[in-house]
């Protein structure tokens, strides 16, 4: 089964694993992106995510189709959470199954790389000092954000 979804409730890893398990599969690769307590050397207390949901889900669906075509994977799960996330919480899950392990791992890595580079989702850092800043905001200061 495939799942492509933006959601504002916590991500359930078991839902993703149940969706990709298949008797034809020898390998399942799962990637979880979680909220770090530091970004570029500065202490953080969490992240806020927003998405342009219609286009984001459409783009994730395209990535799903690319992974199936390029890596010969059986099932693809891509779920991204939005809203306020605490440290350690899961922001994104990518899970794929394939006949062989390297296909699964390569596809999983391509999945998260393409989500990060193409899907219209943005994160705002909530710094430990109380300030906030969107990632890639040119006015946030080169020393603070890339």
């Amino acid at each position, binding site marked *: 089964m495939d799942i492509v979804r933006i959601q504002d409730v916590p991500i359930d890893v078991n839902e993703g694993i149940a969706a990709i398990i298949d008797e034809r599969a020898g390998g399942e690769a799962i990637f979880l*992106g979680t909220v770090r307590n530091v970004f570029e050397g500065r202490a953080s207390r969490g992240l806020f*995510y*927003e*998405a*342009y949901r*219609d*286009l*984001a889900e*459409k783009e994730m669906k395209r990535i799903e189709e690319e992974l199936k075509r390029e890596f010969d994977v059986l099932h693809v799960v891509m779920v*991204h959470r939005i809203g306020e996330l605490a440290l350690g919480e899961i*922001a*994104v899950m990518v899970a794929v199954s394939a006949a062989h392990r390297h296909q699964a791992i390569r596809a999983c890595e391509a999945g*998260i790389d393409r*989500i*990060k*580079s*193409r*899907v*219209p*989702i*943005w*994160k*705002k850092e909530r710094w430990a000092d109380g300030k906030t800043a*969107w*990632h*890639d*905001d*040119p*006015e*946030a200061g080169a020393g603070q954000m890339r």
Partner: protein
Amino acid sequence: MAEITVLFFSYAADRMNGRQHRYTIEPGTTIGDLYRQEMEERLQQPVAAFMFSVNAEWAAPSQILHDGDEVAVIPPVSGG
């Protein structure tokens, strides 16, 4: 004349003081035209700094807008 809606996200929404604006445009206006007329000054970046979509599909700055279109101004993405 045509009525269009523009969605803003991330720091573009902060700079535009809102996540959604409505504009009335001349026939033949492109995304790039609208950006330079209505947004460039407040966003303080050239049109090339953003991606765009029309009706939830990617669109080039050269795309001509039509009545009822929903445009989105899309800063560099940072999901994951």
